[in-house]
């Protein structure tokens, strides 16, 4: 929706010029030192009707730039700022963030941290009320915004009872109710399950289609974002603009550069790059599963896909087994869950679940928010010890009952890695953190030192051994939390959403680590709703919905079943979406990048 006047008169919705931000990092004496500049000399312009996608590795300053759009950086979050930021022609530095609400609306990553009031309607009215609009206008805006995100019928509800996707749609409604023409979205779907991501993007599509508004979108889930984005700005590690341009030109044309920077690429693009390397002629790199499907269907001849690994490959990795047990009888499962029911308050979180996990499995527990997967994993690992009357059924892990076992014995049987690594840190130094589990078990000091050094070395934490765990970076915290679990050499490693809110580089790093451990014989159980990750790494998938097991089998089977995925609040992984319509049955079974007929592109393949 362009205005009639010439472009030179209409200022852009957002005009960022040579922005350079150095955060104030607090020092013990109350002063501060300056962080490395990020972003550093960045120009970004958002015009009406345009969706601009901002990409870059973690630490490049994407979120900082988003917060600078209404002056939260530097006015609320302390920083030294160079360059200029204008919204709708106004200099942000000459205003205050609350006063800019009518020009810039924001949606942040964590839906929980954006709820201020006790009802959906009050929440949407909050911003217009702060802007001192008349009551009738407040209500009119609230209704329009709530209808646009599909929450009008739920206006009386407490935001806490909405799903994650519902709360993030509410945050979007709150942004729309400000009537600001610029929307700034900072990783709006990073904390959501696939159904929630879909809900949020359905709303964003309608906002983009309506025109008039401009959107600055920071997002790492490109499979969802490419469909609505018009232009892309990519930042590098140092916070400079690495490349910028129309979305297809950048993502398809400069895919190798992006992969090098550690930026996610759409799965369809990755797949096409692999195919191209294998000799398949791909003229135009696809960005979406639908485009990839067209490429595959149009290719004159497709080579046979790599034969999928035999499932389960558990037979390949069965170390530490006494020879007698490896004979004619199969080894007993390392985790046995029988008719487990767990109630939490009035709800039944886990409902009559029976499950046997073999040694060497790489099991993925998948399902939407509230499906009971975290509860199940926590009960198995002994993290959650429900009261006797809240639980029925039995759980055995490596012969132990996790509800009763002594923590020292339990850490040898099963290690648990929490979604938030900070929750499990119990000491003030990185090396003490690793040694703690061993000392509790009474391991001799010399051996403790040797094993701690070994893990520090393997996880790249040796230089940080005397740091406080809370002062590590996000990726380092994650590595340390995995380290504390595996230093006790557990037979089973359970991880709760290990890639939640992480960028591609960190996620790949973690998954490589897990694959190494799995190859070494550790049984790995991952709770996740990242479907492509599950498809790439798991040997077995258990889908949960409403606390019940919906499906259990190899990834190709479970992830290929649309009905199961829909019932579990999940979506078909992007690659499977592209291959399902192909005539060749071998190709229809392809769900993993590793299944594609190509040896190389190790730097690109996740």
């Amino acid at each position, binding site marked *: 929706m362009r205005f009639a006047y010439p472009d030179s008169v209409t200022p852009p919705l957002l005009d960022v010029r040579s922005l350079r931000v150095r955060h104030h990092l607090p020092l013990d004496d109350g002063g501060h030192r300056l962080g490395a500049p990020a972003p550093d000399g960045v120009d970004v312009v958002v015009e009406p009707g345009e969706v601009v996608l901002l990409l870059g590795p973690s630490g490049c300053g994407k979120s900082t730039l988003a917060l600078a759009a209404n002056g939260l950086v530097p006015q609320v979050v302390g920083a030294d700022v160079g360059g200029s930021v204008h919204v709708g022609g106004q200099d942000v530095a000459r205003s205050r963030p609350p006063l800019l609400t009518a020009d810039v609306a924001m949606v942040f990553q964590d839906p929980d*941290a954006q709820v*201020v009031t006790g009802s959906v309607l009050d929440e949407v009215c909050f911003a217009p009320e702060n802007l001192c609009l008349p009551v009738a206008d407040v209500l009119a805006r609230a209704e329009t915004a709530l209808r646009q995100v599909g929450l009008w019928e739920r206006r009386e509800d407490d935001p806490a009872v909405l799903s994650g996707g519902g709360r993030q749609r509410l945050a979007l409604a709150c942004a729309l109710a400000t009537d600001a023409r610029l929307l700034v979205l900072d990783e709006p779907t990073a904390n959501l399950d696939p159904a929630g991501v879909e809900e949020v993007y359905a709303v964003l599509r309608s906002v983009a289609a309506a025109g008039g508004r401009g959107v600055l979108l920071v997002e790492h889930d490109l499979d969802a974002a490419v469909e609505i984005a018009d232009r892309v700005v990519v930042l590098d590690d140092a916070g400079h603009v690495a490349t910028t341009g129309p979305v297809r030109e950048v993502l398809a044309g400069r895919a190798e550069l992006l992969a090098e920077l550690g930026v996610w690429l759409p799965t369809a693009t990755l797949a096409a790059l692999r195919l191209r390397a294998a000799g398949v002629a791909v003229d135009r790199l696809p960005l979406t599963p639908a485009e990839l499907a067209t490429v595959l269907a149009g290719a004159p001849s497709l080579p046979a896909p790599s034969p999928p690994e035999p499932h389960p490959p558990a037979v390949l990795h069965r170390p530490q087994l006494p020879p007698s047990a490896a004979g004619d009888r199969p080894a007993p499962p390392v985790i046995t869950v029988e008719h487990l029911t767990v109630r939490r308050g009035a709800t039944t979180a886990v409902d009559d679940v029976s499950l046997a996990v073999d040694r060497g499995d790489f099991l993925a527990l998948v399902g939407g928010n509230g499906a009971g997967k975290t509860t199940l994993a926590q009960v198995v690992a002994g993290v959650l010890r429900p009261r006797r009357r809240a639980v029925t059924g039995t759980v055995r892990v490596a012969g132990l009952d996790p509800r009763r076992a002594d923590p020292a014995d339990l850490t040898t049987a099963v290690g648990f890695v929490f979604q938030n690594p900070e*929750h499990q840190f119990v000491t003030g130094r990185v090396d003490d953190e690793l040694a703690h*589990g061993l000392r509790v078990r009474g391991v001799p000091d010399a051996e403790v030192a040797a094993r701690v050094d070994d893990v520090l070395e393997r996880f790249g934490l040796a230089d940080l051994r005397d740091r406080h765990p809370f002062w590590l970076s996000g990726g380092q915290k994650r590595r340390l939390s995995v380290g504390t679990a595996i230093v006790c050499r557990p037979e089973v490693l359970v991880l709760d959403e290990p890639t939640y809110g992480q960028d591609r580089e960190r996620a790949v790093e973690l998954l490589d680590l897990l694959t190494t451990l799995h190859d070494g014989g550790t049984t790995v159980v991952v709770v996740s709703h990242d479907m492509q990750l599950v498809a790439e790494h798991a040997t077995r998938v258990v889908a949960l919905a409403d606390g019940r097991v919906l499906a259990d089998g190899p990834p190709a089977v479970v992830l290929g079943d649309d009905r199961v995925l829909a019932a579990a609040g999940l979506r078909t992984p992007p690659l499977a979406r592209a291959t399902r319509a192909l005539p060749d049955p071998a190709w229809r079974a392809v769900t993993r990048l590793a299944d594609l007929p190509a040896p190389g592109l190790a730097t690109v393949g996740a």
Partner: protein
Amino acid sequence: MTTAAVVDTVAPTGEPATAGPRPGGLGDLRTYNPLVKILGPVPVMVFLVTTRDVLTPALVALAAIAVLAVMGRLRPRVLVAVALGALALCLVMTFSFGLLTDPATVQDTTLLATVGGFDVWSGALATGLATAVRTVALLMLVLLGGLTTSGADFVRALTQQARLPYRIGYAALAALRFVPRFSHELEVIRGAHRVRGVAPGRGPFAAVRRQAGYVVPLLAGGIRHAERVSLAMDARGFGAHPRRTDRVTAPFRVCDVVLLVSFWAGGAGCAVLAALLR
């Protein structure tokens, strides 16, 4: 979509809606001004503190429970819990205060029994009962407002009538919403520390060491959460202007004045009745 049509579905008059549900009209304590309900009984409470007999606070407590029962629109379970809780508190305090009273002051009363070396004097029990009933009466007066007012309504009344800056009131409301999140986070941290074998064992020392370990992760998470919420509030114009639109008003009406006077009259009535009955 026209403004008129929208307003029609939300507030038919287009006027600011009034606080709280109003199904019961004047007979519903929830519809009255929160300041009247919460601050109105204060003079009665001050008077109660000065009494020494049993009858006056007992009458006040009974009257307060009666008002709660008739006008509070509480769920029956809550009402029963309040009544039984009051009774239990009364019994426990009577005996514990009775045992703790200095025997020298009640030497002229009857010795009722000796329990485990403690003498139970009738005078001591009477003093204990008076203290207990007074406490229960104070509690009931607090519950009059406490059980019939939502936090949001109280903050509205404070900002609209008591001229409390809305930034303070709404910041406090937002902080209240942290509580369920923190209790969940604490549960996870406890589980995490337990599986890592932190300070196992029983007894107060192990318990204190365990609790101390929860503080750092809980605070780190809490501060981060609070920072995020405050960024979200700033981005939604919180604090842009000295005032904000009151979509929902907490009116101070004639019936609120009547209620206020009734509180005082009720308190005085109880005192007079107690004097007559004595």
